[in-house]
Structure formats: structure tokens, C-alpha cells
């Protein structure tokens, strides 16, 4: 017990008051540090990951992949390949996309929109 106190006394970190003026404190006060909304993915992260999934598809030419590319018109895939890509996106973001919505996703734009707006994407 005495040893523990002795060690703690050595480890005590000197407290310094940060010299902040009033305007800085006002700014920092507006940042919500425990907001749960920050857990949601940023749009950039979603775009990057969706494009990675599409590029790693063997039938796709990675140089043609852009965030607006259409799977069947631009990349020359067929509907089964679209199903496969949507499944891969589901696995990447740990989602379960119902059939009705999955039928509508036929381009990168729609995929990115869906994932970004889904509350459970991770």
C-alpha cells in the first residue's frame, strides 16, 4: 500500500491550466464530444469502400470505375453480376438489403446513396 502510494506520487502529472481566451472556449463549446451521430460513416469513406468493392470484382476494369458508373451500361455487366456486386457491398458494410431495394441498385451512385443513408452501415 505504501509502495503504491509512493509510486503514484512519482507518477502524478502536474496540472497546467490552458490559457484559452473566451472566443476559443465558445468555439470548443459547440463541438458535441459525445454525439452518437459521429458514428455514422463519412460520405468519402462510403465512396472509397464502394469503389474498392466494385474495382475488386474480377469482371470489372478498375480504370473505368467512377462514383457515377452504371454497372450494366458502362461496365458491361449483366444482371447476375449486379446481384453479385450488391451482395459484396452488403458484406462490406454488414447490411441486409431487401430484394425490392436491391433490384433498384444498378449503378455506383445508387449504391453509395443507399449505403450512406442506411443507419446501420459500418
Amino acid at each position, binding site marked *: 500500500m505504501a509502495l503504491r502510494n509512493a509510486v503514484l506520487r512519482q507518477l502524478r502529472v502536474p496540472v497546467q491550466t490552458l490559457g484559452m481566451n473566451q472566443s476559443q472556449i465558445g468555439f470548443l463549446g459547440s463541438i458535441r464530444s459525445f454525439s452518437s451521430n459521429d458514428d455514422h460513416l463519412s460520405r468519402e469513406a462510403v465512396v472509397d469502400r464502394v469503389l474498392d468493392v466494385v474495382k475488386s470484382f474480377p469482371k470489372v476494369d478498375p480504370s473505368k470505375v467512377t462514383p457515377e458508373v452504371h454497372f450494366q451500361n458502362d461496365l458491361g455487366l449483366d444482371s*447476375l453480376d449486379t446481384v453479385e456486386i450488391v451482395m459484396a457491398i452488403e458484406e462490406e458494410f454488414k447490411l441486409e438489403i431487401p430484394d425490392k431495394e436491391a433490384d433498384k441498385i444498378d449503378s455506383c451512385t445508387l449504391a453509395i446513396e443507399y449505403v450512406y443513408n442506411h443507419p446501420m452501415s459500418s
Partner: protein
Amino acid sequence: MVSRSEVLSLCRAMLRAGRQYPHYNLREYTKRRTLDGFRMNKNLTDQSKVNEAYAEAKAQLVVLERSVKFHSLYPPKTKNIMEVKLQ
């Protein structure tokens, strides 16, 4: 009369079922085989042949679901080397 969206729904259902296997090799095989199977028949024009193929796939889906339940009773004890992240 089987419609295009029904076929795609069936394909999706089979892929989803195959994803639930605890075994890496069964998961990969199911994915590969269902896509190959659907692609093989994708250019059929005769509606009766399409219906036949659809009925076959539906039966296979039932077998697949049962198989997933069975294999989940005996999951593998070690992680497959292919599932280990490359470092």
C-alpha cells in the same frame, strides 16, 4: 411463368443462404456454384425450360437451407488460413 425478378430473387436467396455456412470452403463453393449455375442457363428462351430450371433451383435452395443448419451444428474448430488477414 417465371419472371426475371423472381429468378434474381432466387439467386439472391441462395447466395444469402450460402453465406451462413461457418466453413470457408462451403461458403466459397456455394457462391461460385450458384452464380455459375444461373449463368449457364441465362440465355434460355423456351419458357418451359426456364420454369424447369427455376423449379430445380428452388429445390436446391431447400436442400441448401437444410445443409446450412446441419453444418452449423458442427462448426470448424480452427480458423481457415484463407480467413486470416494478411499482415
